[in-house]
């Protein structure tokens, strides 16, 4: 029986998120849904039914359409996890990713110039130097070496520390709490406690910068926005939390899976090594493809319809929740030929890994520079790097909202 026929006969819509079969591919059920109607029904963990959007053009269309709100307290808004309820019930703690315009753009525009393409490129030399230090230390260690603990956690962490101007010690305190926020394995009460502690730590950073501004992002926001009265400290703290949560765990996840591809796909490793010896032009292209292929925001993005919207062959009613699957859209064969093949030579720039619309990832240039530099560092320092454990023993993080790896043991 087809999916649509089963629903007509009263079968409960499939529960979401669906299960993966291969750890590096999205759940196969998503591909079936993508070939059906524009928005199918799914059942969430709390029993609620919402719409799931899986095709590339439909994902784009929902994310670009302001009739779909990102405000968690809107009627029908999908609760992605047990802790989503927390965010809904405490709207004062929401960051601008959970706002619509004009509130969203007022806050986001204060950060735009910090994350311009040119600013990210300007960080590249600093990052490369820091990476050479990290790699020199890693290759001196006993093999195998875990590239997650050794590389993909510390690099985004150092970048955040540079942006915030914080010491290694407070960096660790801050990140321990940030990690709890994106892990479904923790109970809502634990997440709430971690978030409150994190906000306390970030408030300390903000207050320190108010007393003594330095040359960092938080200081610039204090000087340019808080002091003239454009931004309150109550708004700045969630903004810092967003930068931390959105910029750290996600980069770690995407870099870890990209490195997994590098150490398990000989073709990819050979192409990149050859390119690196010849100017490295393939690297940014391969990183776009790795973003498409891995799409770490594994369960997609939530929205709710503010009014009735026609999406191709489906009418989404006002007050209905919608989940858009970025990973399903990125495997849409109508846009990417042989979508389940990782091909570093393809033009993957239409991928949706950073989302689409006004909420598209602000830190995308910086993330790409970080991932390019991490791949380049492993290619240069650990030529011929390969997985040091059987593939089946890898610890894939199914419970974390940004899909990734617990560890990546390699030898070379």
């Amino acid at each position, binding site marked *: 029986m087809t999916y649509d026929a089963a629903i007509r006969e009263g079968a409960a819509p499939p529960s979401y998120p669906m299960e993966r079969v291969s750890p590096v591919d999205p759940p196969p059920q998503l591909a079936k849904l993508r070939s059906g109607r524009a928005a199918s029904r799914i059942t969430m963990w709390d029993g609620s039914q919402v719409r799931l959007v899986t095709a590339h053009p439909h994902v784009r269309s929902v994310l670009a359409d302001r009739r779909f709100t990102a405000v968690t307290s809107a009627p029908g808004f999908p609760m992605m996890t047990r802790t989503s309820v927390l965010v809904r019930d405490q709207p004062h703690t929401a960051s601008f990713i959970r706002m619509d315009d004009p509130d969203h753009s007022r806050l986001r525009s204060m950060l*735009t*110039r910090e994350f311009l393409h040119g600013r990210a490129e300007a960080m590249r030399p600093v990052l490369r130097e820091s990476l050479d230090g990290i790699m020199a230390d890693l290759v001196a260690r006993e093999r195998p070496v875990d590239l997650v603990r050794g590389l993909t956690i510390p690099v985004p962490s150092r970048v955040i520390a540079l942006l915030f101007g914080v010491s290694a010690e407070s960096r660790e305190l801050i990140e321990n709490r940030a990690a709890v926020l994106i892990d479904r394995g923790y109970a809502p009460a634990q997440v709430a406690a971690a978030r409150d502690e994190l906000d306390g730590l970030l408030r300390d950073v903000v207050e320190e910068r108010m007393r003594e501004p330095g040359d960092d992002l938080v200081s610039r926001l204090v000087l340019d926005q808080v002091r003239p009265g454009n931004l309150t400290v109550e708004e700045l703290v969630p903004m810092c939390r967003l930068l931390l949560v959105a910029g750290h765990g996600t980069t770690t996840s995407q870099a870890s899976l990209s490195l997994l591809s590098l150490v398990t796909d000989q073709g990819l490793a050979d192409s990149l090594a050859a390119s690196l010896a010849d100017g490295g032009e393939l690297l940014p292209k391969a990183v776009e493809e790795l973003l498409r292929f891995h799409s770490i925001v594994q369960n997609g993005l939530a929205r709710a319809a503010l009014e009735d919207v026609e999406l191709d062959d489906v009418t989404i009613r006002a007050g209905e929740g919608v989940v858009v699957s970025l990973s399903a859209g990125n495997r849409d064969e109508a846009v990417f030929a042989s979508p389940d093949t990782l091909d570093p030579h393809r033009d993957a720039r239409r991928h949706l890994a950073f989302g689409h619309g006004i909420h598209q990832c602000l830190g995308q240039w910086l993330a790409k520079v970080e991932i390019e530099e991490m791949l380049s560092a492993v290619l240069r320092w650990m030529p011929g790097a390969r997985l040091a454990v059987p593939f089946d023993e890898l610890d894939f993080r199914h419970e974390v909202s940004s899909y990734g790896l617990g560890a990546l043991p390699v030898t070379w």
Partner: protein
Amino acid sequence: MSAGLRVAVDTDACCAMGRCAATAPEVFDQDPDSGTVVLLLAEPPSALHETVRLCAELCPCAAITVTEN
């Protein structure tokens, strides 16, 4: 005469992501402070048409309009 292509940008809709300027730097630039799009070539040569169409598609905020004539 080959088909022409006209580009227009909506600076109010622009969310300063800079994908256009990175993809077609001959046609688009960004204000160094705000990041807002600056249109350099309203009628780009035909060699750039495909890239410019891609820019319109990649723009997260639909701030680029391409008119074919």
